[in-house]
């Protein structure tokens, strides 16, 4: 009887054991196997991110400006990485252990399971070392990443821009989680402006690996893989020849050039000098170079074509002229007497000549200051600001690179804020009339303004990119830009255009750049610079009767607009319209006929 009890005790005891085991099996396999499924997958499936080829960049004639080339990056998968190997890895890629530890610290969260780039653009020697020593370098691998290649001597530094490894700050701020530590991101110029098109879409390859990290083969025969998609190519409106020529013309100087097609806003060339070699940013950017670029007193990283804020000088006079016409303050044939100097209060404003009573075109031709001192007082600050804004000042032009400043267009509010409602007088306005004072503009704003003057009041958003090219289908996707008509009558523009024509082709300040073949219309400007020599401005368009190019040249500390900036503008116009470098070549070519 006792034995029966004991037997049952054994039955129950062994049943409890099996019940506990069975219960645990239910818990692991039936209730939540998904959790373990994921773990198993993470364990054995290595995810390789394939970096797509960045979109290429072509000029308007289909010439390749920016290409890609393969480069090797060393990557580390934190989860698999043995920290004892830090020493080896450091000597391999030639960095301080502290740097590597810092990089490793940044790899957190989901990044632990995927390879993260630690060093870009390494030698093939490094790659073969990794291949040969996989056992000791667990978690260390390499990836082949396309980096930028600039196949020609075309520079276009500030318009193309550069890519750079994404910063921690940008990583934290990004929407979504596309970018990972070590990824390249367009940082300036078109590379930044069109980042979302150029970058393409990353691909994912799933590779089975055994517990030693040895690759066994693709998961599910690669059926789960996601192919990377190359980025869109950019077809620019820029003419590579003109751009190159413009760059040489500004070589050794400091300044900016922007040339637009006034019929559509296409940028023909965009130059900022001094510039730098974009190759510095392809592959790994050495910290020394980066520091040097940042501390250079000439500020080569600064885009002078779009980011400067200098007074435009006399090139701005047409704003007042248009304002007075549109507001009915001046009739097309009204005149203003120009005595050679102008007294306002107890201050005397000078001029370079006495012209008598002159009309608007003549005032532009001779760049009379007195005319505009008087005119700006007649139209008043508010109208002056209003037409400045209509003509695109004090705001971004909308050019398709991110580096652009609004500039500064003073207004009553601005002065009230700056000096207090009683702290400023109309005398401040007098110098604004001739484009001096606090007014700040950039070459791209001036080029945009010139284009609108030349096309009689149509704003076309300035842009560098004409088409995006789908790399899969080859399809060209046109990019749409803004266009609007200015609220100024066309006939008033004709008066301005007449004046600008006379500047070059009459007896005006720009007559030195007159061309026998191309009728250029323009306007000189000299911006007073309290810090040094005056800045030289010249805006122009050509041909005068059917404008195909509108240009602004700004050269810092170069004195009169007529002597430095104007000849540069003329040469670029000749190059663009005729393919010739200067007026002597024009005479040789056309004189022979």
């Amino acid at each position, binding site marked *: 009887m006792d*034995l*029966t009890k*004991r*037997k049952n*005790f*054994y*039955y129950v*005891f*062994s*049943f409890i*054991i*099996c019940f*506990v*085991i*069975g219960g*645990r*099996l*239910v818990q*692991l*396999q*039936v209730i*939540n*196997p998904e*959790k*373990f*499924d994921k*773990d*198993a*997958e993470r*364990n*054995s*499936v290595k995810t390789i991110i394939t970096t797509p080829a960045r979109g290429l960049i072509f000029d308007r004639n289909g010439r390749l400006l920016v290409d890609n080339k393969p480069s090797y990056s060393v990557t580390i998968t934190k989860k698999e990485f043995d920290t004892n190997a830090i020493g080896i890895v450091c000597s391999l890629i030639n960095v301080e252990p502290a740097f590597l530890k810092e990089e490793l610290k940044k790899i957190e969260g989901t990044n632990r399971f995927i390879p993260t780039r630690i060093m870009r653009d390494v030698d093939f020697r490094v790659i073969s070392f990794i291949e040969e020593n996989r056992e000791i370098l667990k978690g260390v691998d390499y990836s082949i990443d396309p980096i930028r290649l600039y196949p020609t001597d075309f520079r276009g530094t500030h318009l193309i821009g550069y890519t750079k490894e994404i910063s921690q700050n940008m990583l934290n701020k990004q929407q979504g989680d596309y970018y990972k530590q070590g990824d390249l991101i367009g940082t300036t110029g078109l590379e930044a402006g069109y980042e979302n098109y150029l970058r393409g879409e990353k691909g994912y390859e799933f590779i*089975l*690996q*055994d*517990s*030693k990290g040895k690759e*066994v083969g693709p998961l599910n025969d690669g059926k789960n893989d996601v192919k990377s998609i190359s980025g869109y190519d950019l077809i620019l409106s820029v003419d590579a020849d003109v751009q190159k020529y413009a760059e040489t013309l500004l070589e050794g100087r400091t300044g900016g050039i922007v040339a637009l097609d006034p019929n559509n806003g296409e940028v023909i060339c965009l130059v900022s000098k001094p510039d730098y070699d974009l190759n510095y940013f392809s592959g790994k950017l050495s910290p020394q170079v980066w520091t040097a670029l940042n501390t250079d007193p000439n500020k080569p990283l600064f885009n002078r074509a779009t980011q400067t804020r200098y007074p435009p000088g006399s090139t701005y006079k047409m704003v007042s002229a248009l304002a007075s016409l549109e507001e009915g303050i001046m009739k097309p044939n009204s005149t203003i007497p120009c005595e050679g100097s102008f007294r306002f209060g107890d201050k005397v404003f000078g001029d370079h000549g006495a012209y008598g009573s002159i009309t608007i075109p003549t005032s532009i031709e001779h760049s009379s200051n007195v005319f505009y001192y008087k005119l700006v007082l007649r139209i008043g600050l508010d109208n002056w600001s209003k037409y400045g804004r209509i003509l695109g000042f004090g705001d971004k032009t909308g050019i398709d690179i991110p580096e652009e400043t609004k500039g500064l267009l003073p207004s009553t509010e601005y002065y009230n804020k700056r000096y207090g409602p009683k702290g400023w007088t109309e005398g401040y306005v007098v110098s604004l009339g001739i484009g001096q004072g606090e007014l700040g503009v950039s070459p791209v704003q001036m080029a945009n303004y010139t284009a609108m003057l030349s096309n009689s009041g149509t704003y076309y958003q300035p842009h560098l990119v004409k088409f995006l090219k789908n790399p899969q289908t080859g399809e060209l996707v046109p990019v749409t830009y803004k266009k609007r008509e200015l609220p100024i009558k066309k006939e008033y523009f004709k008066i301005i255009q007449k004046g600008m024509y006379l500047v070059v082709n009459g007896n005006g300040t720009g007559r030195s750049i007159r061309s026998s073949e191309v009728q250029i219309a323009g306007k000189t400007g000299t911006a007073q610079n309290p810090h040094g020599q005056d800045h030289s401005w010249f805006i122009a368009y050509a041909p005068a009767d059917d404008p195909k190019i509108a240009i602004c040249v700004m050269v810092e500390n170069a004195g009169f607009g007529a002597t430095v900036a104007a000849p540069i503008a003329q040469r670029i116009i000749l190059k663009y319209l005729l393919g010739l470098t200067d007026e002597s070549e024009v005479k040789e070519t056309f004189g022979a006929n």
Partner: protein
Amino acid sequence: MQTKLFERFNFVVFISAFALITFGLLAIYSATYGNELVSGNFTKQLISACIGILIVLAIMYTPPKYLSMSSYLFYGLVILLLIAVLFLGKKIKGQTSWFSIAGFGIQPSEFAKVATVMALAFFLSNKHQDADVTKPRDFFFAVGICIIPVVLIMLQPDMGTTLVFLFLLLPVLYWAGMPNYIMFFIIAPAITAVCAFLGTWYFVAAVLFIIAMMLLFKRNILISVVIVCISIASGLSVNMVYSKLQPYQQKRIMSMFNPESDPLGAGYNVIQSKIAIGSGGLTGKGFLQGTQTQLKYIPEQWTDFIFCMVGEEFGFIGSIAVVLLFLILIWQTIHIAYICKNQFLSICCIGFATIFSFHILINLGMIMGIMPVIGIPLPFMSYGVSFLLSNLIMLGIILNAYRNRKDYV
């Protein structure tokens, strides 16, 4: 003839054991698939199983008298081997538990389990000595039979196998007639020791429980007090011993209970095996399709971690089938122990059922992360010639007990 065969041969035990061996062979095949270094393991296990069937049949047909008479001889031989292995054995992973004979590794400690159970059974069933486990002399003799192999195996050192010997003693003594209260006296210090390790409140609760049980049994007050004192002392000494250990030893003990605390060391295998089993889901990933198994995430999976393959590739259905086969086998063995009139064979059956149960609990519990990490193999399934043969010897004796269940000896 047909009825007579069923009368003499327990097909339930035999078929469940061989089903388990088949599962084991499939698992070993999968776990070593594509791994040149151990590709011979499957063949070795298969040959062992084939030879094993002959051994099973041979033992089954041996007259019980010879079996019981040979117990001490077998036990003595095994003890000699356990001593010899300490001097002549191969050291593998810090353990000296192997002889290498003609390419086959022989592990005496596996046979020691069988021999010890047989020796105990022989001692406890010996009519001439009239052994009575309630007498201290006989009790300590029985304990001595267990302790000798324990000491020798601890010297190897092989903690997992040692535990098997300690745990098989009590059920065997209980089956041999040990009264409940003495059983409790023996277990009491162990309870307090474990509870003290878990925490102070567990310890206090355990002491109160023991005092309550002592009052319930209403035994000699002096003995009761002594038992309670011993229990308290054992509880206190556990933490003292633990605090005296080196930090690395403490870490090993901690990771035994909490594998996650050391994911790259002792805990690695358990984390991986849990993943393997969990990811198998209801129906498994299919034979040779388990990523954990095929990509070798679990080191030496064909030995202690063989069940991972079943869990991963055959899923819950396969796993629960294995557990049920074990339960059938164990229940049948207990049933045979109950109906067998030969006390030697009856005690042997209980000893073997205990060994199987303990192995299953510790092995499967460890693999699924609910038991400490103690390396002992899974009966009939884990790779190991000695282990499989010792399991088959037990099977033979169980079948023998069934065959001769009606004979008194």
